[in-house]
């Protein structure tokens, strides 16, 4: 069984690498002699029909897939290259470091399992930020929503049987812990959504403020009411959750758990929601043009609140899964950094749910491999943060990547956020 899974994952990895290779080749080929000659059409304001897709052929799908993957892939490669330079500058051996990184991320069944462990919260949190982006909202607060989701899941996990006075079956206890944790995230995110919709308070600042408030709340709880009372405990953490609230690992002896499968499933659901339902249409319309959405009869304010709630739900889910499937308790500070990583993942995945999954696995692999890299080469894991910031930089400013690799711009610039006025 395990062999098949590993074989499958290896094949996926090889396939990805192949796409990278061909994408680079295609990019180089397309880039030469790019001067964009437009025939003078005597003042005709009509669009040139050649630029528009008329029918989806297999070739055009492959072509557009390669094209939309090209910039993110080159962004990642360029960032890794620059990260190598940083490592060399501080006196490390970039080749050894990256070798350690890849070993740590993919080198063994255990490494693959750990990459999946890392990727799971990244998928949820990345989806959270991506959904908000689709609705024209910038959720920098995934970290706080995740933390509070985890707190509630932990509370339900360790305290509920005691409150009820009897043990719950796993089939009720697990969904309850996860569901209420996700709900907490949704409520926490709905607050800045509400403030945005009804008072105009900008969600960027408000979600950040909510992060700090969440940090204070969890610190208060972990050091006080919810602190693990066992006499040996000196750190700020909750007691361990009951056995009945724990999600099982996928394979015996590995830490990767069913949460990973759930994350993949949720990604598909989010894609369906955004693309195939009227609610998704409403979210996208409010995100693209809120004035037109209002004109079209959509309750824009309600949609903003619901979009933020959905975003927070996903972030809360990330936290709840971490507690119920991995740590079996909430330990203060475990959520640090997820918020910003999620933004990078959402942008690298171009706010597409499937893109988010790929980006999340990549980020998970880097975080996971970094530990082995640090162990082997003494390069601090923080170098990954730099690489991730660079990836985000190149994805956001794709003009830089297009300039370096001489790739012609296709498609239109998408407005993701708006200024203080909106």
């Amino acid at each position, binding site marked *: 069984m395990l062999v098949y899974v590993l074989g499958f994952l290896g094949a996926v990895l090889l396939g990805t690498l192949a796409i990278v290779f061909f994408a680079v080749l295609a990019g180089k080929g397309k880039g030469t002699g790019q001067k964009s000659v437009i025939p003078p059409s005597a003042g005709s304001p009509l669009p040139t029909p050649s630029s528009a897709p008329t029918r989806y052929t297999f070739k055009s799908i492959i072509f557009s897939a390669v094209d939309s993957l090209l910039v993110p892939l080159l962004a990642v490669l360029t960032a890794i290259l620059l990260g190598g330079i*940083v490592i060399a500058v*501080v006196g490390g051996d970039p080749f050894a470091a990256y070798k350690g990184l890849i070993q740590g991320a993919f080198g063994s069944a255990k490494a693959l399992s750990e990459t999946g462990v890392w990727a799971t919260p990244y998928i949820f949190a990345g989806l959270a930020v991506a959904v908000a982006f689709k609705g024209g909202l*910038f959720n*920098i607060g995934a970290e706080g929503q995740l933390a509070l989701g985890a707190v509630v899941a932990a509370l339900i996990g360790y305290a509920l049987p005691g409150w009820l006075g009897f043990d719950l079956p796993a089939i009720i206890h697990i969904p309850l812990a996860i569901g209420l944790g996700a709900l907490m995230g949704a409520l926490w995110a709905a607050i*800045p959504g509400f*403030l945005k919709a009804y*008072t*105009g*308070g*900008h969600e*960027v*600042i*408000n979600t*950040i*403020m*909510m*992060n*700090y*408030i969440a940090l*204070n*709340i969890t*610190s*208060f709880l972990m*050091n*006080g009411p919810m602190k693990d009372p066992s006499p040996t405990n000196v750190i700020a953490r909750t007691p361990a959750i009951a056995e009945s609230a724990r999600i099982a690992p996928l394979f015996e002896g590995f830490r990767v758990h069913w949460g990973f499968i759930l994350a993949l499933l949720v990604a598909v659901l989010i894609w369906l929601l955004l693309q195939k339902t009227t609610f998704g249409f409403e979210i996208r319309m409010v995100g693209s043009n809120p004035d037109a959405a209002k004109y079209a009869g959509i309750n824009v304010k309600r949609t903003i609140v619901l979009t933020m709630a959905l975003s927070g739900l996903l972030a809360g889910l990330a936290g709840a899964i971490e507690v119920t499937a991995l740590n079996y308790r909430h330990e203060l500070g475990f959520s640090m*950094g997820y918020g*910003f990583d999620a*933004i*990078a993942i959402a*942008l690298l995945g171009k706010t597409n749910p499937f893109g988010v999954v790929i980006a999340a696995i990549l980020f998970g692999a880097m975080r996971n491999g970094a530990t082995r890299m*640090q*162990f082997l080469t*003494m*390069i*601090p894991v*923080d*170098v*990954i*943060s*730099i*690489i*991730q*910031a*660079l990836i*985000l*930089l190149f994805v*956001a*400013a794709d*003009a*830089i990547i297009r300039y370096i690799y001489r790739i012609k711009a296709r498609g239109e*610039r998408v*407005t*993701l*956020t*708006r*200024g*203080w*006025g909106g």
Partner: protein
Amino acid sequence: MNWKRFGFIALIIVILFGAVVLVGSVRQEPILIIASMLASTITVATPLTLGALSGIYCERSGVVNIGIEGMMLTAAFFGWLGSIYMNSIFGFDKMPSLIIGVLVAILSSVLMALLHAILSITYKVDQIIGGTVINILALGVTGFLNRQLFFEKGSIFGGNVPHAPGTLPIVHIPAQEAVSAICGWTGNSENCQLVAKAVGQVFDQQPITIAAILLVIVTHFVLFKTRWGLRTRSVGEHPRAADTVGINVIFMRYANVLIGGVMAGLGGAYFTLESVPSFEPGMTNGRGFISLAAMIFGNWTPFGAWAASLVFGAAQALQINMQLYRESIPAQWAFLQSSYVVGMVPYILTMLILTGIIGKTISPAADGQPYEK
């Protein structure tokens, strides 16, 4: 700045000060408590004021900058690093090391501002995303270098943190002496000397704090009385109109974002060269974002932003001063003993202010919009 807003600021400050006086009056003279609150309010408002000024320069020229947090963090780290290098490796004295540290802080922040300018002005990247890039990059770079340089290789614990040269000394303004002298002429009562002591406490501030207050005045003058200010505001309101009268919109925006970098750099230097002589990852703790709220609340004016910064400063001063009188908090208010509970006040206050219930403000018309010819 209308009266409603000033009233609100006054009200918040009275409430915050009143809370500390109520709790602390058992153990300390109220006037000295107020003086101590006032002094720490002005002090902790410093990075907020400078961050808000940074935001004003950027946004008045039409560039939204949510990267101020990251710029301050970068400055805090490199300024600290610079002072350490000067002091322990090149053997400079304390003062020259610190001054060079401040300059290094400003330089590093200006470099980050340059990156933001390139992204948002030249590459027309969504400016909020651009600012987020700055924030993440700052966290990564400072976290990485901090660990790489100051901790035993490969180990998270047990490092060899070098000795920092300390913090900038207090600039003594002889306010206490002045009031004391007046007391001497008017009968030299005990109460009067107490006032003198209190005044002295408020006026004893460190150089970056004093610079921040001076820069508020300078910025007001630059923005509203000079050619530079007129042109800056014009590119932030209606860049095309500015272009049609021959103003170089791109240059004005670059220049103002870099000036904003100087302000944020000084604000960052406050953390490691004036407040405490050490660096912690992520030590700016959202001050950059709060300063943006102060800028918005202050309607993009220097004095307004300063007043708003003082409100946030007071909220933080509450936390500091509450700790001093922790034991005097009555039992039914026990939760106030937790610094986590009191620590939330500035953040909640920020959100409250952004709701606009104390009056809406209007941003520069072209704020956040890249200029396309």
